[in-house]
């Protein structure tokens, strides 16, 4: 049996055989406001429940904002971060000169500087790898990175990123807002990941995943997060 990592979405894991296959990367994509970031929060919350490490790369909000949003769902990450099980890469505050101090588990980078982003991710991977060889990773979202960089360059960066985190043992998700780049780039993006999940606001579809292609189910977003109905 393939070892899997629970997504944390009630009802989804049952449909996909327990969760995402370990050491694979899943693209979660769809139109704006369909719950892709909530998917990430839930995936992170499951990491806490399962006592796993997580590398969280955020491009549209900073750590206090993440903490606040998750609190709305009654998911608490403060202790998890303090215990240094949560590694954060803040790409939202990078270019404005954040006053927050960088540590082994908290790095800041700028969205338009992929060389620095990958370099700092590797630094965090070095610390994580000394503690565990199985951890989660979240990149929310690739959309912002596409906005700041040449799309073809960004595809190269994402290839490098997925290669790095998979080598280090991660099971991860990357979010992306459908239609931001042209279809050719979207096709290349899909080719850099292992699994593809589409969310359209009503229906969640597993478009590609070993053993469970084209499974779909209806979902809704409640104050307990995404729930399969």
């Amino acid at each position: 049996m393939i070892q899997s990592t629970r997504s944390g979405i009630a009802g989804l894991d049952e449909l996909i055989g327990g969760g995402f296959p370990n050491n694979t990367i899943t693209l979660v994509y769809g139109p704006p406001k369909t719950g892709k970031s909530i998917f990430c929060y839930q995936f992170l919350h499951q990491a806490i429940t399962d006592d796993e490490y997580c590398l969280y790369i955020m491009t549209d909000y900073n750590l206090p904002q993440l903490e606040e949003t998750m609190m709305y769902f009654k998911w608490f990450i403060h202790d998890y971060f303090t215990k240094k099980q949560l590694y954060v890469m803040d790409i939202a505050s990078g270019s404005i000169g954040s006053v927050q101090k960088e540590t082994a588990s908290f790095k800041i980078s700028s969205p338009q500087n992929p060389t620095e982003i990958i370099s700092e991710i590797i630094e965090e991977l070095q610390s994580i790898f000394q503690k565990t060889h199985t951890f989660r990773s979240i990149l929310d979202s690739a959309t912002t990175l596409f906005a700041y960089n040449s799309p073809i360059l960004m595809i190269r960066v994402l290839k490098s990123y997925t290669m790095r985190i998979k080598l280090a043992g991660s099971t991860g998700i990357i979010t992306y807002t459908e239609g931001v780049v042209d279809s050719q780039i979207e096709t290349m993006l899909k080719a850099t990941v292992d699994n593809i999940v589409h969310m359209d606001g009503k229906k969640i579809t597993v478009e590609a995943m070993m053993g469970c292609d084209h499974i779909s189910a209806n979902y809704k977003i409640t104050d307990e997060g995404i729930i399969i109905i």
Partner: protein
Amino acid sequence: MDMKKTYIPRLDDILKGGTPPGTSVLFNAIPGMLCDIFGYQIIAQRIRNNKEIGFIYTNTRTPAEISRVFDKYGWDIMTPLQSGQLFFVDSISPMMGVPPIGKYCIDDFNKSKDTVLCAINDIAGGTAVIENVATLIDSIGANNTMELIKTWNEAANKHDVNMIYIFTRWDYEDRMIEQLIDLFNCEIELFGIEERVMYRQVYVVVKSSWSTISRTKTFFELVMPGGVKVFIPKLLVTGPYNAGKTAFVHAISQDAVSVERQAYELFPTTVGLDIGHVDYKGFSADIFGTPGQERFDLLLEPLAREAIGAFIVIDSTQPNTFARAKEMINMCRAEVIPKIIVANKQDLSGAMRPEEIKKRMALWEDVHIVPVSVKKNKGINQTLNALFDLIYRV
């Protein structure tokens, strides 16, 4: 010839004094290296020490960010910016929607050529840092980028300007990379030493039109403040008690020294350190052998932190010590650094074969085990080859 120092440790020795005026240098880095720091360090030190003039063309960091980076590394940027000794060619702020800073600003990559030419004209005899070539390639195309670089290098040559290009080598086609490299007088590769994660950084001069080069690999780290710092790599030799570590250190190194005394154990054993040095196929490293007894475990961690590779020596006839060997591997972080299991004492009857040892120790498939008899001087070079192959695979 009048050489301009790079102020990168060891690089000026390798390049026989530095870079001649009017030449171009490419820093060709794999993703994950902060290659721009090399460019910043060169220009910052030349400005400070030689009263040189220069500019930084940037399409990745905004000038404000670059200023913060200079601050972190302890290089003064405000004074030369204010005096006009240094200026920016800002090709990023307009794309970011922030006010540009600098003498020149580029709001369209297609205008890069003329703007940078103007900037080169302004700094005769000075230094220009261009970063990042990758962004140019993926914005205006490889051919256009190479056209630009050719034009810039010709102008720089005429005005005795030293061009320092920073390039992050994402997954471009090899043929394109070859053509690109052809455009420069000198190429310096930056890459990582990896074992599932990159944990050490190396630079190597692979091409220089003004000096013969030896392709020496220089290990470095980026230190704040300070910048590029080199260090002598260390190889760790560890393993359970009485596995033959001291003999192994002496076998692989010239003039090894052992700090030992007759301990209370049955055999003469190392209670200090075995220290040696190896020069092998252009690679130079210090060797540290640690004692195997548990009471010396506290020595392992600091040594392992500095090490770039490890030999785990085991006695192939003593499977009851394998658990201890595995414990030492974990303790010395050797799972992260390349390592070779030296299956010693193969000359003795009852010695287990590598496959058998791998099974008994429940090791990863890709862990390398080399059968060795230090006593009979068999397999020693194979262990060095195997470890250096691991260290330098890119």
